[in-house]
């Protein structure tokens, strides 16, 4: 099981702050992203989406494990 977070404009575009995924594991972050599309209000490309797993930046090839916390968000704009 994966716990998924969306932040900022991606939270609004997906229509979700958090989701739970119970699909087959391990899978890459990219595969998870495709799997989630059916739950989005509209399809969203990977472009300009950042991925963090267990609160560390990673890439779309990262192999997700049961219990991981996965976050998707747009480029950061703090400071």
């Amino acid at each position, binding site marked *: 099981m994966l716990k998924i977070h969306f*932040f*900022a404009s991606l939270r609004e575009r997906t229509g979700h702050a958090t989701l739970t995924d119970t699909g087959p594991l391990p899978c890459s972050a990219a595969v998870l992203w495709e799997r989630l599309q059916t739950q989005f209000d509209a399809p969203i490309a990977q472009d300009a989406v950042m991925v*963090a797993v267990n*609160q560390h*930046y990673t890439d779309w090839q990262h192999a997700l494990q049961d219990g991981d916390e996965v*976050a998707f968000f747009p*480029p*950061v*704009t*703090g400071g």
Partner: protein
Amino acid sequence: MVTLHEQDFDPWALIQAHQNTLRGYGAMASFVGSMRDFNEGDTVTAMHLEHYPGMTQAQLEEIVQDGMQRWSLLGCRVAHRVGDITPEQPIVLTACWSAHRKEAFEACRYLMEALKSRAPFWKREQLIDGTQRWVEKNTPGY
């Protein structure tokens, strides 16, 4: 030292308090970013700073560790606002102490650039016409 602030903070008080814990410094460089009431041609009346609780603090501490490894520093202080902000309030503080000025200047700027590209904060602007928008890009730092 890294702190997140739900309320307005006084950057000079934070700098002085941290400096009181340090010895041997001859140089202190600091940066304070404040909210402007103007962006991309529009009047901005307020801002909301969203972040990723848990990841934010860890990322900022990692950035400070990177700076401490890269330069010979005696201390670093980073503070960042979250939540609702009004114009002229400070958003971010980075400060570095070192024996000599070169290290403090370079590390302070490095902390800001690293924070801008890596710390999980997102700004949402409230415009004077009542609409809201997410800030999509950062101003170049170099």
